[in-house]
């Protein structure tokens, strides 16, 4: 029986709504950003919901203050705004202050990558992985479907410290039909391959799985890994998995070569002494204003399935030489 796909935010918000009935410590803050499920939280828990208005700096500060008073805070806004509009507030009153004082603030950023397809670069988000992973004490979580997104709830409540949840704005096909991946591991192996492994995060896992299938049909078996915990994955385990590959391909819906998952994997490979060669799939160039479907935009910036398929095929060829 297949699981009906849902929006990541609705599934997590529903878990929060259910928990708020018995957990008086949960507080929800929003920067004037909603969802039908959020309406239930607003209606049922008006004392533990606050809309700060279009004011992300204050969203972070108020959330920090609530956390200092012992609340488990979920702060909710559009991804580029909840990360970049208020970056210094995040740095000072979440990353830095949590070094000294225990606090639990979970930033839910909706609109990873191109998921606000026709809204243009202000509402799209290609820099957040780089920025948020630069902050000590922060956990950066980038799920690929609603099952894994919803499963983050328990971890958000039980683990102190600031976290950034990078959510897609669209309803994505379900990947984890059989159940959520292991959060302690932080990554999930979807396919094992021979010489090349695709390491993808968020939406790009869907692209990676599609490409892997097509390559398999053409006789190339490539591995696919969902790296959903970008800051806290089980490093030894990942090393073990990757050590059998001659080539690693990173796939992210963010700028290529600007400190995202690609840089993280370069560091990982170098530090762990792996000899695999790398191919990085990420958004090429700068900000773009073309309109089109997400697939069309992805092809234009070098992260679409056709481009990835040919790039990986060439990469496999180059490794064979």
């Amino acid at each position, binding site marked *: 029986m297949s699981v009906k796909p849902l929006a990541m935010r609705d599934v997590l918000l529903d878990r929060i709504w259910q928990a708020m009935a018995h957990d008086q410590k949960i*507080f929800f803050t929003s920067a004037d950003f909603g969802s039908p499920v959020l309406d239930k939280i607003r209606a049922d828990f008006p*004392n*533990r919901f*606050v809309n*700060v*208005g279009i*004011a992300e*700096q*204050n969203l*972070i*500060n*108020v*959330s*920090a*203050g*609530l*956390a*200092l*008073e*012992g*609340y488990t805070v979920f702060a909710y806004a559009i991804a580029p705004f909840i990360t970049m509009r208020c970056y*210094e*507030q995040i740095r*000072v*009153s979440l990353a*830095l*202050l949590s070094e*000294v*004082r225990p606090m639990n603030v979970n930033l839910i950023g909706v609109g990873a990558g191109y998921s606000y397809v026709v809204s243009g670069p202000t509402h799209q988000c290609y820099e957040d992985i780089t920025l948020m992973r630069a902050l000590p004490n922060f956990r950066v979580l980038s799920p690929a479907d609603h099952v894994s997104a919803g499963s983050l709830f328990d971890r958000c409540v039980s683990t102190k410290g600031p976290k950034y949840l990078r959510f897609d704005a669209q309803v994505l096909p379900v990947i984890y039909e059989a159940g959520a991946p292991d959060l302690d591991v932080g990554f999930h192996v979807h396919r094992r391959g021979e010489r090349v492994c695709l390491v993808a995060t968020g939406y790009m896992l869907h692209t990676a799985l599609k490409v892997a299938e097509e390559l398999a049909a053409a006789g190339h078996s490539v591995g696919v890994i969902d790296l959903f915990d970008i800051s806290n994955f089980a490093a030894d385990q990942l090393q073990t998995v990757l050590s059998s590959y001659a080539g690693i391909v990173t796939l992210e819906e963010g700028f290529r070569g600007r400190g995202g998952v690609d840089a993280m994997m370069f560091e990982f490979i170098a530090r762990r002494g792996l000899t695999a060669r790398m191919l990085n799939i990420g958004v090429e160039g700068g900000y773009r204003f073309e309109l089109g479907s997400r697939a069309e935009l992805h092809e234009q910036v070098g992260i679409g399935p056709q481009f990835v398929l040919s790039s990986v095929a060439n990469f496999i060829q180059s490794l064979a030489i």
Partner: protein
Amino acid sequence: MNLSPIELREKSHWVWRETLAVHRRAPETRVASSLSSIEIFVALYYGGVLRFYPAQPLAEHRDRCIISKGHGSICMYPILADLGYFPMDELQRVCQTGGFLGGIPDPVIPGYETVNGSLGHGLGVATGMALGLKRKGSDRSVFVVSGDGELHEGANWEAIMFASQHKLDNLHLIVDNNGISMLDYTDDIISHGGLTERMTAFGWDCFEVDGHDVGAVQAALKKMKTSGEGKPKALIARTLKGHGVPGLENAPLSHIINPKPELIDSLLQQKA
């Protein structure tokens, strides 16, 4: 602790001397803005305003004091030591290896609640604390001490609007209105002229006071704490940057001027 105005004046003078002495030993500290806020902090901590517990700095039943103007609170070092938050000896190793009292205070210092070195953050975090206390059903209060210069940071005004919208009458902002930021008089940068009227228009209950009359500051703070049902409260304290130090007092560049060691020595002798 609830000292009389006369005792508060004596304490303020002691803090003034100790602050200069700290600066004499650690010239990296910002002394001018730490001299404008002395009576504010003395009234808060010795004037029967704040409930605090030096042996348990983060006791749930404390009033929260957020020191937003981090640099300009070096005068809190002698106060916190005097109150028993940490040993007096620490005043001898400000800005030194192994010490924890830095050029800009950090929340590793017992008695400091939040990160303050970067300006314009204290009030927003304090509003979150004030909201949290209300929602927990706590009767504890939140006090924030900020400079006037840092009110140029827009995030403050997000918090100012939020606090009145949510009727945070447990929130008290004290503006050390010394009229000078780093490079100039605030009136010549972006003026806060009519700050009381501005804050009132934003829905706050506002009080004004001579920020160097410690008895008046004490009285204003006590009045504030028990008044203003349904409104956040602000005390605009008229102060002088570099208070009491010739050449420094009210000088537009006082933030970055260090008084000469000989001047500090002679002041400490004269005013002993």
